[in-house]
């Protein structure tokens, strides 16, 4: 079976230790997590994990079942890229000297539709949200000017179809 990129979405109680419990499921199967993001969800006190892995569909099915089985997980899903809207955010810290002395960098920033978050006499910070290729393109374009720091977030994603998690929660509490 062919490996591809899957986005696993987990709705879970916001408890200490659950991340370790979830990541142990990947560790046990010797599967590397490509990216991981945990945040609030649309429901109060419920966390949303978004985990990206490159595996076969059979593997992701089994992993999701194991995740779903954890006591504090309300529901786990997996989706392909086509089924989701997803983005990543990146921050680029560049020396301010290059902004003032090299006009070309301003074109790069303009062309990339990135935002300048802050500027001070020493450095400035650019933020770019988009697909992996877009943040990578900007990385490549800025690299010649000297990147003082670069960081990119895990993927965040929402599904095109409804999640109906409120419905599931209601069912579970009934």
């Amino acid at each position, binding site marked *: 079976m062919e490996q591809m990129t899957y986005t696993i979405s987990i709705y*879970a109680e916001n408890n200490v*230790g659950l991340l*370790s419990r979830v990541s142990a499921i990947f560790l046990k199967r010797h599967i590397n997590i490509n990216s991981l993001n945990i945040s609030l969800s649309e429901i109060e006190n419920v966390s949303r994990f978004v985990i990206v892995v490159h595996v076969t569909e059979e593997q992701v*099915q089994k992993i999701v079942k194991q995740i779903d089985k954890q006591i504090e997980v*309300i529901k786990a899903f997996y989706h392909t890229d086509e089924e989701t809207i997803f983005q990543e955010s990146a921050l680029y810290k560049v020396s301010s000297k290059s902004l003032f002395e090299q006009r070309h960098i301003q074109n790069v920033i303009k062309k990339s539709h990135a935002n300048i978050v802050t500027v001070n006499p020493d450095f400035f910070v650019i933020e770019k949200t988009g697909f992996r290729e877009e943040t990578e393109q900007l990385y490549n374009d800025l690299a010649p000017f000297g990147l003082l720091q670069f960081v990119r977030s895990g993927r965040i994603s929402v599904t095109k179809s409804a999640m109906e998690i409120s419905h599931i929660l209601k069912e579970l509490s009934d």
Partner: protein
Amino acid sequence: MKSIKTKSIQELKSPGQPIIGAEAVVRCLVAEGANLIYGYPGGAIMPVYDELYKFQDYIHHVLVRHEQGAVHAAQGFARISGNVGVCMATSGPGATNLVTGIADAMIDSTPLVCITGQVPSHLLGSDAFQETDIIGISTPVTKWSYQVTRAEEIPEILAKAFYIARSGRPGPVLIDITKDAQFASFDYSYKPCRSVRSYKPVPETDQNDLKKAAELINSAKKPLIVWGQGVILGKAEEEFKAFVEQSGIPAAWTILGASALATEHPLNVGMVGMHGNYAPNLLTNECDLLIAIGMRFDDRVTGDLNTYAKQAKIIHFEIDPAEVNKNVTVDVAVMGDVKNTLAAITPMVEPQPLENWFQRFKELDKIEFDKVIDTELNPTKPGLTMGEVIKAINASSGGDAAIVTDVGQHQMIACRYAEFTTSKSNITSGGLGTMGFALPAALGAKMGAPEREVVAVIGDGGFQMNIQELGTIFQTQAAVKIVILNNDFLGMVRQWQQLFFDKRYASTEMVNPDFVQIAKGYFIEAKRVDNREDMNAAVEEMMRSEKPYLLEVCVEKENNVFPMIPSGASVSDIRLE
């Protein structure tokens, strides 16, 4: 054994004033009916032990000799009684010593609540004396775990722990309680847990799946049932028997399913798996319908998955959605508690004429009897076999004893040849294969069911892995019967070395101590026997004893367990020699 009679929760007055967390722990245990627990004290759990002292009329605490003994004893208790086993340990090494047993309980779905003390919360993360991250260490091998840092949390968390441990597919839960939470006072009240909003213990049964399953069963010409521990955990022995008898289908068991249906039942066709019976293993690859009930298609059962029951339709009765299509892709999955699903399907099933199919079992049974069983149970060569010892135990107990086994050759022989009339009678470490399991588990089993005869059958290797629990047996006077099948080898590893490593017996020969003297050192009656003439009488004497008793049987050193499906081979490649 001293008779243990503890007072019940009804006799326990509510405190009427704030109490400390440690007292709350003990009151919660009483409220959950956990009146027999196993453990070992130490610094971080001392406040709870102080309360155990005060509440000794309500809870009987058994002091083991090593925390691993506590967790295996709690497992033995849980396996024979069907109730949640409880064990307790201090922080650090106390907690880590529980881990093997917790992992064993996890893979064998045994309900446990393990309580560990922890350093005070202000010291967490400071590498304090006897601090260890037991939550982190135990996470992958627990059904649920939680660290309590405030006394107020104790009633709710312990109620949740018992509920999670026993509901759905059971498993071990670990609750780690910081010492400051044990000392802090609060207003106590206890409410049992009835649900957890993110947890659905039993999935819904789809009526269509039941219908589809019934259709497959009613049209099968060569059906085979393979049942597992799910029947026992689901307390569904009656429903299972009714289903088997209504359908008239031959039924085979996994090692943990043993004893759910009596050995002598005419439809019981034996054990599947690596050292299982010849007929059910071979016929797995001849049947046209495989009905799996409360089992998980472990690799020791299936052998090579690419050649496992490929010709058959497969129905899987299962409570855990994660087990469905995990190892074997099935045609119909009937989700739910087998107690309900089996009761629902039985009236939908019509008995089929299966004489020719049963004939196949008989033919293969005869081959196995002639080539393997007869020589194991009725040997003519000098040198005792393990099988004839089990046969002697059967003869003495009439199949009513609970047999607790360790891991290795003796375990396979005992599971193959022990006769069972009663459910929950085969207590063994199946999934994890934990040597050292049997001695403490037998103690727990005997205390969990004092009215039952409990016989621990153990190899000389595994016996020495938790040999210190002889001390607990002596102190409790639990009348466990211990049979050491001593071949002076780690027999199963030696067997593999003989068969697959060209007889290079690397580190498998054991120079053993005098087990009888050791038992006597613990004031436990003991005897050694090394010949056929004396063996039956020695077994009989042991079984008649009303006290703990150790019988060392010196068996043939280099016997092998057959049949055998070599690791990774197909069930069709089962070897008789």
